[in-house]
């Protein structure tokens, strides 16, 4: 086929991709558009019943709901981006709330040790999750489910109800606010910002996306895939630990089932997926997740204001979730492989 060589080489004749970034309907954009739409529709619905959605109390409600779930979902985003999953977060939230509250035992001097110990416990659980997945090569779903069961066993054996005591000064974390925005919510957004930076600007972040995109490709490119997965799990658990500490400060004590009652395991995955992160990993990010968290928090607040039947509430949440994922999937289909 020497006959074709004198023709211009197609590789070079293909025009370079234009550098201008066209505004496209990415999942992240969709989720914030949906959030705004939801706020508008919610305001109208609540308004029709004579209430106001976005008054001081309403905003406070939304932010408060978003804080704990937000922290857990931030961590969940990181593990899901690596192509993993963490089902142990809900029990871990309960456990860390207990560790923090029991260590503090009502003394202001023990606040720092309490927080540090709770975070350390969380980090260890994350380390175990990560090692079980990478070294024992257990599927992430099963590995973290197993760890969740172990945590549950421990909690059921040792606790029947709330335990420990958080000193007054530490309760400020849960209740102080700036205008309608709780300080804790700002801290959560700060954590989100830090994780966003980590994922999109730092080298470990690049490796998290690479491992989630294709483990084999990452490995052959010299990425420490195991280290990346373990790191992601430690970060996820620490984020869940922060949620546990925050909830201890709000409740005034630790509570074994504070995480599971709120369904943080599945709820956090829902928020991540709603935010446009691919459950298979490699695509998505924190910004979308925060949008997803606020959508779920706003939905809850609207339903509370409307005094809707809780079962109907779940139906709507289910529909929202499925619609979102279906929308994103359509977006993917249009792209060539």
């Amino acid at each position, binding site marked *: 086929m020497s006959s074709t060589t004198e023709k211009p080489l197609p590789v070079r004749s293909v025009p*370079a991709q234009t550098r201008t970034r066209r505004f496209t309907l990415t999942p992240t954009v969709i989720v914030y558009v949906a959030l705004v739409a939801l706020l508008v529709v919610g305001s109208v619905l609540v308004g029709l019943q004579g209430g106001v959605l976005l008054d001081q109390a309403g905003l406070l409600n939304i932010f408060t709901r978003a804080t704990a779930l937000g922290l857990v979902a931030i961590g969940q985003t990181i593990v899901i981006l690596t192509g993993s999953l963490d089902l142990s977060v809900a029990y871990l939230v309960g456990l860390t709330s207990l560790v923090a509250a029991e260590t503090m035992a009502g003394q202001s001097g023990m606040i720092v040790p309490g927080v540090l110990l709770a975070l350390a416990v969380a980090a260890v659980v994350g380390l175990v999750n990560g090692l079980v997945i990478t070294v024992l090569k257990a599927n992430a779903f099963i590995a973290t489910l197993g760890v969740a069961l172990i945590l549950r066993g421990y909690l059921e054996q040792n606790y029947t109800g709330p335990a420990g005591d958080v000193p007054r000064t530490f309760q400020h974390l849960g209740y102080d606010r700036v205008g309608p925005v709780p300080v804790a919510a700002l801290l959560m957004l700060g954590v989100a910002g830090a994780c966003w930076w980590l994922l999109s600007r730092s080298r470990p972040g690049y490796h998290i996306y690479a491992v989630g995109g294709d483990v084999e490709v990452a490995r052959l490119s010299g990425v420490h895939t195991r280290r990346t997965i373990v790191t992601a799990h430690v970060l996820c658990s620490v984020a869940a630990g922060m949620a546990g500490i925050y909830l201890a400060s709000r409740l005034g004590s630790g509570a074994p089932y504070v995480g599971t009652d709120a369904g943080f395991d599945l709820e956090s995955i829902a928020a991540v997926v709603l935010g446009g992160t691919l459950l298979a990993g490699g695509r998505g990010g924190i910004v979308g997740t925060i949008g997803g968290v606020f959508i779920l928090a706003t939905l809850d607040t609207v339903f509370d204001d409307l005094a809707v039947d809780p079962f109907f509430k779940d139906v709507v949440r289910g529909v929202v979730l499925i619609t979102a994922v279906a929308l994103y999937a359509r977006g993917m289909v249009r792209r060539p492989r």
Partner: protein
Amino acid sequence: MTGTSVRLTGISKSFLGVPVLRGVDLELAPGEVHALMGENGAGKSTLLKVLAGVHRPDEGRVEIDGVAHTFAGPADAQRAGIGIIHQEFTLLPHRSVAENVHLGREPVRRLRVDRRRMVRETGELLEWLGEDGIDPTAAVSTLPVAQRQVVEIVKALATDATVLAMDEPTAALADHEVELLYDLVRRLRERGIAILYVSHRMREVFDLSDRITVLKDGAFVVCAPTAELTSEDLVRHMVGRDLSALYPDRARPEDLGETRLRITGGGNARVRDLDLQIRAGEIVGLAGLQGSGRSAVARAVFGVEPFTTGTVELDGVARRIAGPRGAVRHGIAFVTEDRKGEGLALRQSVRDNTLLVRRSALRGARSRVAADLTALLESVEVVARGEHQEVRFLSGGNQQKVVLAKWLAVDPKVLLVDEPTRGIDVGAKQTVHQLLRALAGRGVAILMISSELPELIGMSDRILVMHEGRPAGELPAGASEAAVVGLATGHGIGEVA
């Protein structure tokens, strides 16, 4: 860049007690293209992975510029200046070119990844290669396959590689893209890079390489300058016997039966004005460049993206085929070009894969028949450890034979084959060719798509050439490559020849 020489001596490697490499020697000089050949399972990829630091040899020495090295992992080999182009793309489609090129070695400045430097260095390398048409910030998924191959090479070069090992770099490329790769390989050679080139395609090896090393069953057979070898020598070294006639005899006129498949005015989003008849016992070749609608024809006939206009007749009866299920019911079989993605359930057994179509397409008792499984597998000459082995552990050639067995299990009338021998070794290739001809002999109408022109010309009783979604012309058996290329590039017969 200064040249680097590599010397592997007495490399041995076993997996689970099975020897894969037995005392292999290999030498690479700077500015040399050294072809590594052998059948599937001869140990080429394993040798490559030893050089890449993926596998550690049980015995033998790896010397680079005369210094012995022991690689603990791919990163060590990278540091020693060895870059590998793996058989499958090792790119993340949703990340940018620059991000892919620096994957695992992102430059960091004040804690953060230095994106500007990544883009700049990628741009410089692309320019050095003369491929400055590629934007370092473009997502890899937006690039055509040929450009992805370039990115793959740049990724290897970005590690300051002075030795490049390419494992079947043309497996994913269409014919005209292969020419571009040749050009690139030559440019790399001029710049003093030592290239180890693994390929099944004879023509590539003769066009490109300076020396050839042949492996067989994990052992070193011969190393000689390319100029001193003929393709017959090479095949003999690889297979250990003569492959006298590369292609089976074509159908004689009296072998042909009634028209089994007739398409009149077929068209959809990718194909227009398609008229095509295939008679029982006939193999019709379908040629064309990548994207010319070649594969789209097969996909339309099989109902994946059905024709929206025109008529399809099977054995003289007009049929509407709305989906693959309907196609299978009407006796159409389709061996797709994507063996691993569309042809096989990789984690399932040979048995389950072979019976897949029968179980899904037939009804009642017939769907549960498995008594002829052994006979089926024997008829396609599958070599496996047993019917329960997962197909992902088979070689490419044996996988393809399982795909064929899967369709033979339902006795098709029309067989569509897309790139039936892509990425499989010479021996298996011949088996597939003979099988196809034998099937035609039993009255099956076969449409064969291939971007390997010698194969297409050698096998076909007639060749239909596609150009930009339409049939550009039909050529008789034994047409010249020039004629096919002429039609495929839209020039007409003989114009470019």
